[in-house]
């Protein structure tokens, strides 16, 4: 088998050599034969004649030998390719249109496929990434605040010790370091990691080593691991990094390793990893909520088994520590699912859309090819009369299609690479976007696309053209033309239908995005600058000092010219932040068993002022709130106080947690969409506290529009009062709100551009087909006009034809849209997936485009000069 292949390859690639050998071999034979005849007494001429007679023509023998080499198919392909290239080069216009159309189709498809592949299909960049689970604790019956899913170090170690389904369980939390060597302090993100962190991730440092068991223990030798980025920036890629140390505060901590640039867990921003010793005295509280937890399953253990195991372990812990552990349960999510969120759904949707686009492109080229092949009747019939088989004509035509597709896919790869830029720009906030890049998968995929599409758009025209000649009967020419036309119109109709589907989807997304942009927020994000200041969790040991620090910063900002109001908050207003709790109203009659749940926000004084949320009754938080106070929004008051005022009532959080928040309601404010643009405001309670954590979000309302200017002012002012702290994430609030819509914007923009491309292709298809039909019916039109047909009638004749196809395409498209729109549910806001006005808009648009594409060929038909046509005959 292998030697056979080697033989064929040699015959194909060393063709000249092999042919020479064959010549020589045959010549030798002929000479020997001639010698033999001469020896028998024949004259030289007679001998030559006899030899010829015996042997036949050398050409046919050579042909049979070439057959024996098994390269006939290769030979034919080579001939076909050469011929097809020449034919295409002769019609550069057609070739260009086809290549560009395919390039767009394949390019867009490959770009989306690459994103899908990099983000969704490929495993996370860890060895055996499927074994990694995100692990959360939760209270099955409680409203859930975000951080209660974080796990206490003591419990994490219990899980690690008792759960047998896991190779290891570990966790991390993020904190700030401040780097003070530059003009302004700079924030460095540090991850505190539980023991076994790097083992569980399965990623080794590029230089040095991971932490030793001793370093992971309290009081052990100090050690940090740094990122490749920090290693480059701060240590100039020093190969001897292990002799260096990182200055943290007053201490020099030895660097033991450098993590590769590809290691972006939990966050691409992390530059320093430090061990968080579970045996430290401050880490013993089982109600601490520290670690974002991950675990690596043992080989062969399913996710369900892992979950069962953890819940069994947790039930045992519940018996052992009833106060803190009894109410907790565990849930797990594959780490990839947890990392990606809703992105896969968007990408699959886009991939489906872009595949429809590719289908439109294929159909478009199929109809172009049909028209062109019809023009090549003469050439093809000559081939037939020279004895070409139908199969060989089909192969010839397919080769042309394939060459187009191949060049198209090369162009497509270039377009896809450009498309990555669009992805990175539009999707900068989305997970794993940096992993989208040019690789072999993309090239292979594009080539596969080329082969599949060339079969798709080449086969029908090729077999159709070949068949129309197979009988060799020119008498059937007219009916065949009509049949070809019908096929062409069907192809145009398909393009229209697919474009309508895409336009409808895009229309829904655009309308829904528009609704989102015009939603009434209940707060005013314009002229608000936001930032954070480096802080660290160590500061929570002295809450009072932390609070003093934040309040002093706020006061300093408020005293700065240009600043109208300054406040701090636990969360970004208008961005998702899950923090719901169940509350009890102390004054409520005990028999009332209404369950009171509310969203929580923790804010400083002036928060409502800075965001222009109206204070409806009562007072704002005091600057240095001495006692526990809170405000509620109107929805809260309306829902739980039914007409009475909420002011003066006392609320208490119902929780099994360590500290139950409680306080007096001192004011009522307007409803705001705190949770995100697409989330209607709900009952919300605002607890007064300037410093809920070491790095609250600062919100600064300015007098001027110039937010960049105020950014500088803020940096300078903070540097004056807190020279050891860095300002980071200095971003206008409107920018943050826009960032929350990244995924939404990405899919809207992309689906929109696919739809526009599709309808443009369909319009070109319609125009091209109608033009072609006009051109082959010139004689008939000329006759009609000569017989007195009105030009207007002629225009209408063709216009009607174009519009009829468009209408049929629209009907089919609507039907298809209804089926496809299901895929968009969950991505829509404020419109249903069967939105009637979107339907109508799309229909009007498509019919208008259909009319536009038909009018020019129709008018050209009416301008046919009968005399000239008759003269042409």
């Amino acid at each position: 088998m292998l030697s056979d292949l080697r033989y064929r390859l040699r015959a194909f690639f060393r063709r000249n050599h092999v042919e020479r050998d064959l010549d020589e071999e045959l010549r030798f034979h002929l000479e020997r034969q001639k010698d033999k005849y001469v020896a028998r007494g024949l004259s030289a001429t007679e001998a030559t004649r006899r030899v010829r007679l015996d042997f036949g023509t050398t050409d046919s023998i050579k042909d049979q030998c070439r057959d024996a080499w098994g390269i006939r198919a290769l030979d034919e392909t080579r001939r076909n390719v050469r011929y097809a290239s020449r034919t295409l080069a002769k019609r550069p216009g057609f070739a260009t249109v086809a290549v560009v159309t395919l390039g767009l189709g394949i390019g867009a498809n490959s770009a989306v496929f690459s994103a899908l592949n990099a983000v969704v299909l490929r495993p996370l960049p860890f060895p055996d990434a499927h074994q990694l689970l995100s692990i959360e604790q939760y209270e099955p019956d409680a409203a859930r605040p975000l951080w209660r899913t974080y796990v206490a170090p003591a419990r994490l170690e219990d899980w690690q010790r008792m759960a047998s389904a896991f190779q290891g369980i570990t966790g991390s939390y993020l904190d700030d370091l401040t780097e003070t060597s530059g003009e302004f302090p700079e924030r460095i993100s540090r991850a505190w990691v539980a023991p076994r962190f790097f083992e569980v991730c399965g990623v080794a440092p590029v230089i040095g080593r991971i932490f030793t068991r001793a370093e992971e223990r309290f009081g052990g030798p100090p050690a940090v691991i740094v990122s490749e980025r920090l290693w480059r920036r701060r240590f100039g890629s020093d190969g001897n990094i292990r002799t260096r140390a990182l200055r943290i505060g007053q201490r020099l901590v030895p660097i033991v390793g450098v993590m590769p640039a590809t290691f972006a867990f939990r966050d691409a921003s992390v530059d320093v990893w430090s061990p968080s010793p579970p045996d430290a005295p401050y880490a013993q509280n089982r109600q601490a909520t520290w670690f974002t937890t991950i675990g690596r399953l043992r080989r062969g253990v399913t996710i369900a088994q892992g979950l069962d195991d953890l819940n069994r372990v947790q039930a045992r812990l519940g018996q052992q520590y009833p106060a803190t552990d009894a109410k907790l349960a565990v849930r797990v999510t594959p780490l990839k699912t947890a990392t990606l969120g809703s992105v896969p759904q968007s990408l699959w949707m886009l991939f489906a859309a872009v595949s429809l686009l590719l289908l439109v492109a294929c159909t478009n080229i199929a109809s172009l090819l049909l028209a062109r092949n019809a023009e090549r009747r003469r050439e093809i019939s000559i081939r037939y009369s020279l004895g070409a088989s139908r199969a060989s004509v089909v192969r010839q035509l397919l080769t042309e299609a394939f060459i187009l597709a191949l060049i198209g896919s090369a162009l497509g790869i270039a377009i896809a690479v450009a498309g990555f830029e669009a992805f990175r720009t539009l999707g900068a906030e989305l997970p794993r976007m940096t992993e989208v890049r040019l690789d072999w998968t993309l090239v292979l995929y594009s080539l596969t696309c080329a082969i599949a599409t060339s079969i798709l758009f080449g086969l029908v025209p090729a077999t159709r053209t070949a068949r129309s000649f197979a009988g060799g009967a020119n008498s059937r020419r007219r009916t065949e033309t009509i049949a070809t036309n019908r096929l062409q119109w069907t192809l145009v109709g398909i393009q229209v239908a697919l474009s309508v589907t895409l336009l409808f989807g895009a229309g829904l997304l655009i309308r829904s995005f528009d609704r989102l942009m015009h939603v009434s927020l209940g707060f005013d994000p314009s002229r608000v600058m936001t930032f954070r200041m480096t802080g660290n969790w160590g500061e929570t040991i002295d809450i009072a000092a932390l609070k003093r620090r934040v309040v002093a910063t706020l006061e300093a900002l408020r005293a700065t010219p240009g600043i109208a109001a300054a406040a701090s908050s636990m969360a970004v207003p208008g961005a998702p932040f899950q923090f719901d709790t169940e509350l009890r109203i102390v004054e409520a009659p005990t028999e009332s068993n209404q369950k009171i749940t509310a969203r929580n926000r923790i804010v400083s004084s002036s928060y409502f002022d800075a965001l222009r949320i109206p204070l409806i009754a009562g007072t704002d938080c005091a600057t240095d709130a001495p006692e526990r106070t809170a405000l509620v929004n109107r929805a809260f008051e309306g829902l739980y106080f039914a007409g009475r005022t909420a002011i003066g009532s006392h609320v208490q959080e119902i929780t099994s947690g360590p500290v139950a928040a409680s306080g007096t309601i001192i004011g009522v404010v307007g409803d705001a969409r705190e949770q995100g643009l697409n989330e209607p405001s709900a009952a919300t309670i605002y607890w007064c506290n300037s410093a809920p954590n070491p790095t609250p979000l600062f919100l600064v309302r300015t007098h001027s529009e110039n937010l960049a200017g105020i950014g500088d002012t803020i940096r300078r002012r903070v540097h004056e009062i807190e020279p050891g702290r860095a300002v980071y994430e200095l971003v206008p609030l409107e920018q943050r709100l826009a960032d929350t819509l990244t995924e939404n914007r990405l899919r809207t923009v992309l689906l929109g551009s696919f739809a526009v491309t599709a309808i443009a292709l369909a319009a070109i298809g319609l125009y091209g087909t109608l033009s072609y039909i006009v051109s082959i019916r010139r004689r008939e039109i000329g006759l009609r006009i000569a017989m007195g047909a009105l030009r207007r009638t002629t225009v209408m004749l063709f216009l009607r034809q174009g519009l009829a196809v468009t209408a049929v395409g629209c009907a089919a498209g609507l039907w298809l849209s209804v089926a496809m729109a299901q895929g968009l549910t969950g991505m829509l806001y404020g419109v249903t997936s069967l939105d009637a006005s979107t339907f109508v808009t799309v229909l009007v648009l498509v019919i208008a485009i259909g009319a536009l594409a038909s009018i020019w060929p129709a008018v050209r038909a009416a301008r046919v000069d009968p005399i000239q046509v008759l003269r042409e005959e």
Partner: protein
Amino acid sequence: MSDERLDLPQGTLDLLILRTLAPGPLHGWAISERIQQVSRDLLQVPQGSLYPALHRLERRGWISPQWGISDNNRRAKYYALTRKGQKQLAAETHSWRKLTGAVGLILDMD
């Protein structure tokens, strides 16, 4: 003489070539001469099919070519039986014998 010549049954040319090469390498012309000689001129290799057959056998790896100098001092392409070719020859000889034997039995029945 020519009236007595036989047409080669389909597929026997390969067998004849292989058998002819069994004693040692030969070039194309010699193969056809040898077949003619040994069959006492009863069999004549159709000149047109000899070379395609040789190339086909070469592709299958049953014979391998080697350029050499012929007895009249010219470059000629010699073919030798390969190990695979020997096996093939044995197998084909066996099945040919069986076939002719069986055909003989049918013809001889009374």
